[in-house]
């Protein structure tokens, strides 16, 4: 539906809104799933998949592709939506999310979908995988980049910090981590459950380049991803301040919408709101 790469901010906004509508419809039809974190990440996913990443919708295993690892695997509705909308598969398949026999498993399964690099869902494991791909690319002298989307609550997993050490130690400047910093996790506010602040300082202390942005500002996202590409000798993390449930008024900043599907009434209300936001 769009000629990639999409440079135009308004178009990218429109795409992000489409991803949001997909997320709401998918989780409504599935009767379960994770809308909150999917909605907070939608703008970044739109920019990554339609503006930044090199990929070939006709060949998921294209050698020249940039790699994307969804470490916070539970927000796969927005991932599936992005894969669908760039042209990997038709829209109808989106509505099979979480259903028996579907490729669209409740958490991303690379054994079912070759568009997915690795299965995720058990938190904290994706950045290590991204590093491994990046090390392999460096060994082969390839220019491809590796993007890894993490949740903020996920950063409580110790393995993430092991991986943060590894990326800096091996100077993996082809790795770009993105933290969807929406401040909420299942049990409540991240800072109440198990605080991760001061987050930027922590990554900096681990020898990463840190770029902090508003994760809903398309231009800031574009600029951060472009900047990250030019930082050499160390990996970059984009700490994106976001709103969980962004775009649907009653889902915004509500921990309860982490892993809950909308009812019919809520679905209709959410879709109406998102339609109204279409540019």
């Amino acid at each position, binding site marked *: 539906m769009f000629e990639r790469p999409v440079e135009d901010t308004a178009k990218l906004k429109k795409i992000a809104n489409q991803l949001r509508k997909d997320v709401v419809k998918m989780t409504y039809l599935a009767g379960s799933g994770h809308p909150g974190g999917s909605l907070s990440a939608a703008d970044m996913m739109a920019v990554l998949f339609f503006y930044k990443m090199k990929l070939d919708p006709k060949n998921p295993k294209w050698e020249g592709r940039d*790699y994307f690892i969804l470490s916070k695997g539970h927000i796969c509705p927005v991932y599936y939506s992005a894969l669908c909308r760039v042209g990997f598969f038709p829209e109808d398949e989106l509505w099979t999310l979480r259903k028996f026999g579907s490729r669209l498993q409740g958490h991303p*399964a*690379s*054994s079912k979908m070759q568009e997915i*690099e*690795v*299965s*995720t*869902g*058990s938190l*904290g*494991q*994706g*950045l*290590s*995988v*991204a*590093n*491994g*791909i*990046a*090390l*392999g*690319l460096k*060994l*082969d002298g390839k220019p491809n980049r590796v993007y890894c989307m993490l949740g903020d609550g996920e950063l409580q997993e*110790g*393995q993430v910090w*092991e*991986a943060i*050490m*590894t990326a800096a*130690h*091996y100077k993996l400047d082809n790795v770009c981590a993105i933290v969807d910093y929406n401040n909420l996790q299942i049990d409540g506010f991240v800072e109440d459950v198990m605080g991760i602040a001061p987050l930027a300082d922590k990554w900096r202390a681990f020898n990463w380049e840190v770029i902090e942005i508003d994760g809903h500002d398309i231009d800031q996202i574009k600029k951060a991803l472009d900047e990250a590409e030019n930082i050499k000798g160390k990996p970059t993390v984009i700490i994106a301040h976001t709103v969980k449930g962004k775009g649907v008024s009653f889902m915004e900043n509500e921990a309860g919408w982490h892993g809950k599907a909308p009812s019919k009434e809520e679905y209709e209300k959410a879709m109406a709101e998102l339609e109204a936001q279409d540019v």
Partner: protein
Amino acid sequence: MPIKRREVEMKPTRYGYGEALVELGASDPNVVVLDADLSKSTMTKLFAEKYPERFFDMGIAEQDMLGTAAGLAIEGKIPFVSTYGVFVAGRAWDQIRTTICYSNLNVKIGGAHGGISVGPDGATHQALEEIATMRCIPNMTVIVPADAIETKKATLAAARMHGPVYLRFGRAPTPIFTKEDDEFVVGKARVLRDGTDVVIYGAGPLLYEALLAAEALEEDKGLSVAVINVHTVKPIDVDTIVEYAKKCGAAVTVEEHQVMGGFGSAVAEVIVQNHPIPMEFVGVQDRFGESGKPEELLPAFGLDAETIYDKVLKVLERKGN
């Protein structure tokens, strides 16, 4: 019960792993090796010295190491990750299950220091549960080689096949009793000794003790004892196991591992579903290891030819001989 012990060449199985990795380094530029600060113990240092650009020390961070290996496999490399079995198959179990096996990635895992014969380091470092924890994961192949020669062949074979493989080896020197020209096929058990009265199925260096017990039983009791090397615990060689269950009518399994869920359990799963016969299990009986010399620990934990000898007599009583 006169078990006759002779002079035999001894070598730790982990040396076979290290030597195979060096060969692989020369023959396949895609082979990469990762270790978690134990390269001198796992013998990956041999590869590291020769191919430093393809060796990655990941520090004391096993979970991250397994994930990194997964990424390297996605990028087309053939990563061999190595550390002690307790750490890799225990601490990084979820990484092996979800990241590697669920994605069916081509990661080879070298689990060193398997068994009680690790010795003085004690229970924390003696892997006694990893056959069980590795074999229950879909897509995983589990190989427990009998000696250093077979470990080398198993490592080379692991590199040639696609998919996750767990290789188990030990710390202490153990007898060399397979030959360089013995055929090694993943998933195919080898008959070390034919027999008709009772069969001993084994995996790992303890098979040498099984052979000693079989010899003594023949000499003392005139028994015809088969000994089968089931080096591939998964996928297990159902045909050979059933063939010998039918032929012998009584079986003993031998492993340097917990009896619960381990190699003996894997053999029992085959036998009860195909040809139920009386079985006895030689292995660690639901307890942790402890410090000591290997030659003190093995008999103390019932992992020797003497115990195997007794278990054979016991199972034959149940068979009705």
